[in-house]
C-alpha cells in the first residue's frame, strides 16, 4: 500500500475508528466543571472576606495573599494525593482555577524527586506549568510596552 491509496485507506480507517468514540457527555462534564470551579472560587471569596474583615487587609496585599493561600491549599491537596481525584471528577473545574496551576507545579516536583533535588525536583517542577509563565511574561510585557508607547 503506497502513495495515494494508502492515504485514502488511512482516512477511512481513522473515520471508522472515530465512529467508536463514545459520545461526549457535554451536559454532565460542563455541570461538574461549573460546580467544582464555582466552589473553588467561593473558597477564594471566603478567604478574601476573612482577610478583609478580620485582618483588615486591602488592595494588592489582599489579592496576593488570597492567591498564596489557594496555592498552598492546591499543593497540599496534591501532596495528599487528593487533587488528581478531584480532577478526574471535575475536568476543567479543577484545572482552570489557580489551585490547578498549583497542582501542575507541585505534581511533577513530587513525581521527579526520585531523580534528585536538582535535575529531578527542581528542573522538572515547571514541566507542565512553565508555558504559563513563559507566555504570561511575553504577553504581559507586550501589553506593558503597548501602553508605554500609546
Amino acid at each position, binding site marked *: 500500500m503506497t502513495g495515494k491509496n494508502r492515504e485514502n485507506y488511512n482516512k477511512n*480507517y*481513522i473515520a471508522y475508528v472515530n465512529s467508536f468514540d463514545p459520545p461526549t457527555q457535554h451536559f454532565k462534564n460542563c455541570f461538574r466543571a461549573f460546580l467544582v470551579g464555582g466552589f473553588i472560587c467561593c473558597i477564594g471569596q471566603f478567604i478574601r472576606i476573612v482577610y478583609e474583615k478580620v485582618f483588615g487587609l486591602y488592595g494588592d496585599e489582599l489579592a496576593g495573599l488570597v492567591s498564596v493561600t489557594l496555592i498552598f491549599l492546591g499543593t497540599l491537596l*496534591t501532596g495528599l494525593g487528593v487533587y488528581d481525584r478531584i*480532577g478526574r471528577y471535575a475536568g476543567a473545574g479543577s484545572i482552570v482555577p489557580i489551585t490547578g496551576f498549583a497542582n501542575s507545579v507541585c*505534581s*511533577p516536583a513530587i513525581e521527579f524527586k526520585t531523580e534528585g533535588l536538582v535535575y529531578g525536583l527542581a528542573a522538572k517542577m515547571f514541566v507542565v506549568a512553565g508555558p504559563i509563565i513563559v507566555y504570561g511574561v511575553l504577553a504581559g510585557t507586550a501589553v506593558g510596552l503597548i501602553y508605554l508607547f500609546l
Partner: protein
Amino acid sequence: MQTIFFNNKPKIVATGTIAGPKESAGVVGRYVDKTLTDDMYGETTYEKAECKMLSYAIAQAIQNAGLTEQDVDLLISGDLLNQIISASFAARDFDFPFLGVYGACSTMAESMAVGAAFVNAGYHKKVVAATGSHFSSAERQYRYPLELGTTRPPQSQWTVTGAGGVLIADMGASNGYPAITAATFGRVVDYGITDVNNMGAAMAPACMDVLLNHLRDTGRKARDYDLIVTGDLGALGSRILKDLTWEKGVDIQPNHVDCGEIVYNVIEDEFQGGSGAGCSALVFNAYIMDKIKKRELNRVLFVATGALLSTVSSGQGESIPCIAHAVVIENEV
C-alpha cells in the same frame, strides 16, 4: 514467507509470574506465582520495583523448571522504559548472557520467538524469555505525573503492573511439555492513528496483518486453533480486529480472547482494559499456559501487539507505527 517453523520442537518447561495488587484481584490472581499487596515491592522507586518484579519472574521460571542459574544459557528480555533499563538491570542479577529486545507491548511474543529459534537451532539448550511493566513507571514516562489532576479519556487503557517469564528448553523427545512450533514475525503497520490514548485502534491493523500472514503461510484456518490470544488490544481494539479480519474473510469471533480485555475484573477507570508489556506476559504465562498444561487447550496462537511510539515522536505529531508477533504453542497429541 513470514513464518518460521521449529521442527525440533523447543518446549516451554516452566513459567514464572508475579502480579501487582490490582491485577491480583482479577482472573490471573489465582494462577500467578506471587501476588503483591504493595506495588512498590519494598523498593523506593517504581522503576526499581518493576526491575525487581522482572527479576522475580526470571528466577521463578528457572526455579519452577527445577533448574539452577548455572543451567541457563541465555536471557532474552525487554520492557517499556527508556533504554529497556528494567530488563538490563534485572539481567545484572543473573550470571548468564543477556539479549535485550524491544517490541513495546509485543516483547513477550518477540522474546519467546527469538528464544525458541535459538533453542531449535541448537545454539542454546535453555533460554529464559521474560518481560514486565509497571503502571506508575509507564505513566510517568509516557503521560503525566501521577498527581496531576487530569481526566482519563474513555479510549485509554491501564498499564498492567506485573511480570512474566518462560523457560524454553530443548527436551529431546520428551512429550510432556507444550512446544513452540512456529512463529510469525510481524511487519510494522501504521494506519495513521495519532491519538496516543487509543492504542487499541492503532495496534489492531498490525495484529490483523500478522494474523492473516500467519494463516496464509501455515495454510490453517482460524478455527484450527483452540484459542487465538491477542496481546493488549483492549475491548475497543478487539472489536476493531474482529471487524478488520472479517472484512478479509477470516472469522476469529468464536475463539478469540484478548489479554487486555480479561486482565481486570471490573472495567471502570481502566476503560478498555489493560495494556503494557506485562499484560500479555502475565495473562499468557499464568492463565493461558495453565490451561495448556492441563490440556484444556491444545493449540494456541499467541499474538502480542506493540505500539512503537515515544513521547518525542508523538510530540512531533507522528502517527503511531505498530507491530505484532505471533507464536504457536501446541501440545503434542
